[in-house]
């Protein structure tokens, strides 16, 4: 086991900068997700760690070793691919055993290790099958087994759950979590799915345009997004944003926009200009009668999810979303009054969190 240190790496493909001066320290035994939209550089970063790409600048350490120029094979890391990348001409047994074979392990010991791992993933019945005879979920387990069996210094996972169906994904997610806790292997997990990132990770790295936007524990990321990008990207349904300005009124700081007037906690640094108010849908309560401080809105759409209902309401031309626990009395076109529970303030221009 080892920690992974990425120090100021940059990777360009032609004119396009995939990773820009990125640094990151993944601690030993830690599960870190790289989260971001496609093209944000998360996969490239991971491939640099794996050695499949060589960064143009910067260094990568695994444990004490500078691995920046080492071949993938010499880094002792395992990668689980989105496509699983099973060897089509090998049985499950040989697929899992392949890394061990390359380490010169003799067959009896290898078989024992393969069987033990297969047992762990519940695929010990499938050892003699070829990849094409396996279902997606089974292939996934084989790929994980192949990564696990040799106890690498670090796991790298490239969207490993995105090719399996929704139900199985939930199961696998739990299984991954359990596995990582059990084995305690340092893991870098690349995903564009925030739920995966939030549920699995010790820490999440949110990326965009090849740079780190925020690093933090899942709840930190959710509650204190460092900037508008993170705030927008994390959370479903997404945060509601209102653009306006801060005014001081009677010693209170008030956010004012065309439609809204909201008293807010004054930020430490007063912004130079306009600000954006961010409100999570669950911080927006829906009331059926007008009251002080509540803003009038009209329900445009209702999405009942069973355990909650997502309410889409319009304030002027803006659409806001709120999640309410019980939405049975609500109806489309009904007038409602929205109340903001807690809010975040961002500098509109720089996007930086102010509160």
């Amino acid at each position, binding site marked *: 086991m080892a920690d992974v240190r990425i120090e100021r790496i940059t990777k360009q493909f032609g004119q396009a900068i995939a990773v820009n001066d990125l640094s990151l320290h993944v601690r030993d035994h830690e599960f870190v997700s790289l989260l971001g939209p496609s093209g944000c550089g998360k996969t490239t970063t991971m491939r640099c760690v*794996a*050695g499949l790409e060589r960064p143009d600048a910067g260094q990568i350490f695994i444990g004490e070793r500078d691995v920046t120029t080492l071949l993938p*094979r010499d*880094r002792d890391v*395992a*990668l689980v691919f989105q*496509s699983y990348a099973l*060897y089509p001409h090998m049985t499950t047994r040989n697929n899992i055993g*392949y890394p061990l074979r390359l380490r010169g392990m003799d067959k009896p010991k290898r078989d024992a290790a393969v069987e033990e791992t297969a047992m762990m993933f519940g695929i010990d019945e499938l050892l003699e099958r070829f990849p094409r005879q396996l279902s997606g979920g089974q292939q996934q387990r084989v790929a994980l087994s192949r990564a696990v069996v040799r106890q690498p210094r670090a796991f790298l996972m490239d969207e490993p759950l995105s090719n399996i169906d929704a139900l199985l994904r939930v199961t696998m997610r739990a299984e991954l979590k359990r596995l990582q806790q059990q084995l305690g292997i340092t893991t870098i997990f690349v995903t564009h799915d925030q739920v995966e990132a939030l549920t699995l990770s010790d820490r999440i790295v949110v990326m965009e345009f090849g740079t780190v936007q925020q690093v933090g524990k899942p709840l930190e990321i959710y509650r204190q997004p460092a900037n508008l990008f993170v705030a927008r990207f994390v959370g479903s349904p997404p945060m509601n944003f209102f653009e306006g300005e801060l005014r001081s009124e009677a010693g209170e700081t008030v956010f004012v926009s065309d439609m809204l007037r909201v008293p807010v906690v004054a930020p430490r640094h007063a912004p130079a200009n306009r600000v954006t108010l961010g409100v999570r849908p669950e911080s927006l309560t829906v009331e059926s009668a007008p009251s002080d401080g509540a803003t009038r809105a009209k329900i445009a759409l209702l999405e009942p999810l069973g355990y909650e209902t997502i309410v889409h309401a319009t304030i002027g031309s803006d659409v806001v979303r709120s999640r309410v626990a019980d939405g049975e009395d609500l109806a489309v076109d009904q007038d409602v009054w929205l109340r903001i529970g807690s809010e975040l303030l961002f500098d509109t221009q720089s996007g930086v969190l102010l509160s």
Partner: protein
Amino acid sequence: MQPNASASNAGKRALVYLVLALALIWTLFPIYWVVVTSLKSNAELAASTPSLLPLQPVLDGYRTVIERGIPRMALNSVIVAVGTTIVSLALAVPGSYGLTRLGLPRRIGTPLALAIGFALIFPAIAIVVPMFQLAVRLGIYDQLGTLILLNVPFNAAFALWVLRTVWMDIPRNIEEAALLDGDTRFTAFRRVLLPAMLPSLIAVAVLVFIFTWNEFLFALIFSTSPRAMTLPIGIAAQVPQHELSWQIVAAAGTVALVPVVAATVLLQRYLVRGLTFGMAK
């Protein structure tokens, strides 16, 4: 509706079977006829009405064909075909890997691929005269090795072209997985990629073998003695001009057909894959 539908289904079924029956005759009857002719005697061949079966089968045709060295020519064909297959694949396998797998920029890769593709449609007759002169100058005409040298470029281009699409269909991730599992690029190539593409490789090898086994033009011009005569030349040579017997050429044709038909039946799956440029899996 129901009875009507089933009637039209029966009609369709009948039509399909009719077409298949005709296709069967169209495909196999000429082959049947060459086999039957090879067994007929001269007297039977001189009859005004041909018979569907050899009335008194004789093996004279085969005897003559053996006397005239057809087995030797078949052996030559095997040598040329095997040699060409090995050399072509030895060139095309690494070549196609280099062309598709190693991040060659498009502005280099595309023209190179196009040049190879062009070689595919380059007429063989166009190289015959200069190559013949060169072979004469070097004293290497009428040798099996020369025939291999002549066949290799065209077949290597074919193999490259097909394998190129095969490589493009093998996910890069598989190679990368191997690199992470502890392979070098070379051992990953040898232990993971080559085995993974083996079926396509067999397909290409079989086709190159058959193309070369059937090759006529080079063999016709570059062989001046039985030392380098291949089977197609031997067969063409049996077409009677100054002698009586058609069963000789029929026998020679049968000898050439047997391995081809056998190969088709045994390797059908691979052939289809190679012929459709990997389109059918």
